[in-house]
């Protein structure tokens, strides 16, 4: 399975999807971002709805990276976010940033606040 995984990564990196996103210096692994985001979306809703927990849908990737790194180095206060960020590598963060930025472009705008 591992060998196939690396082969996937190579092909993903050259796929048109990266071009569909805002052009970036390095093609981030959006599929990795989507997988890692499984942990995020229980609180940061994919729909963009927010209630006590801010929406991160459509955040510009570089801004996203700055904020997550701030949690990672414990410069920003929130023990849940600090614990999450501590486990993320640079590559993970770039992937997540790319995924959430892309989500802002591909999904519908957030629905009004209230029962989802």
């Amino acid at each position, binding site marked *: *399975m591992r*060998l*196939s*995984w690396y*082969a*996937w990564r*190579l*092909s*993903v990196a*050259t*796929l*048109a*999807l990266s071009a*569909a996103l805002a052009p970036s210096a390095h093609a981030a692994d959006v*599929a*990795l971002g989507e*997988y*890692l985001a*499984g*942990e995020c*979306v*229980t*609180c*940061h*809703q*994919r*729909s963009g*709805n*927010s*209630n*006590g*927990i801010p929406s991160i849908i459509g955040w510009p990737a570089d801004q996203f990276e700055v904020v997550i790194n701030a949690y990672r180095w414990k410069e920003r206060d929130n*023990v*849940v976010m*600090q*614990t*999450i960020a*501590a*486990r993320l590598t640079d590559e993970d963060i770039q992937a997540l940033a790319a995924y959430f930025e892309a989500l802002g472009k*591909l*999904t519908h705008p957030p629905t009004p606040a209230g029962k*989802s």
Partner: protein
Amino acid sequence: MISRRQFAKMAGGTVLAASGALALPALAQGKPKVVVLGGGPAGATAARYLAKDAAGAIEVTLVEPAKQFITCFHSNLYLGGFKSFEQITHTYDKLSAQGVKVVHQAATAIDREKKQVRLADGAVLAYDRLVVGPGIDLKYDSVPGWGQEHEEVMPHAWKAGPQTKLLRAKLDAVADGGLIVMVAPPNPYRCPPGPYERVSMMAHALKKAGKTKSKIIVLDPKATFSKQGLFQEGWEKHYPGMVEWLAPTVHDGVKSVDPKAGTIVTGFETYKNVALANIIPAQMAGKIARDAGLADGSGYCPIDAASMKSKMDPNIYVIGDASIAGDMPKSAFAANSQAKVAAMMIRGELVQARTFPARYANTCWSLIAPDDTVKVGGRYEDKDGKIGTIEGFVSKTGETAALRKQTQEENMGWYDGIVADIFG
């Protein structure tokens, strides 16, 4: 959202060639079939993610007898008057709309040999892979003198639904000065901080109703409990004199319960005229899992830490409260996390989807009093064959009111987020 199948099309032969080295599993005619048993945080999440991420390449059927799901998580908030019953009630129509075939029947048996599930109405569902998320069953014989026939008189409310409403009604009926006794459960059980959040919510409701002469006694088989220092600090601060938690060394065990008389006898004291007895017994995996031979001597189901696959059957995944998940507590958050790993691994097996090393997470928020919430959580991974904690966190005593209020806002935000993630 671009699916992996579209990726494969765009990449031409590259991706398929890379994965062609793997032998394709022998599948039934047509699309691979996954059947999911249980429509709670575990099963519904698995069904949803399978349908969503396989983009129609897998036929997903969810078997859940109830037409509505009442969340056990935040049911304590309903008890305390912070949420309505409607706010903890959810339906399956969004899941259906997302391509999950929802069957409102009870599953009566799993035929592991034939890879079939039998339903109460006689129907048979074939599967290539089975996800089992039945939650817990109560060990009704674990508290002497109490049994299933007494659960209306002395409710457990450890499965949300009618029991939740019953407990709330009984709580509201407690007069000022009334005695409430909770028999807390032994490990391992669903929702470690749950009983203590419930104590907090009951105390709050009583206090709000001006019934501060009432008392809540907790008879615990455990020497310590989740977030103990935080709860005890909170009880002293918000409900002084109303809550007494007794360790097993103090009460010396629950010797007998008399549901008719409303009496509970411990080695230490006899409690008479108990206005409300909340008996939370020992627990085990849901019957469908145990009957299928998926559980071990503990009553829960051993799984492979890297995938949530059952150690008893390579075609079955067991997730949520029914599973033995190492350091992870039995919680909705954990169930949802495990479900996503299982869904990913199943897609990897059935449609050669890309998989990543399993990562699990949990955070449990507990409301102690208005705007005073504490949390505990962590991140987990496969550590030498068990799901082990990589990093954990817990609230601290003496935190500011502002922080506790923010924690409560997170709690409420999380609830909206996770039910959207589970039910669509």
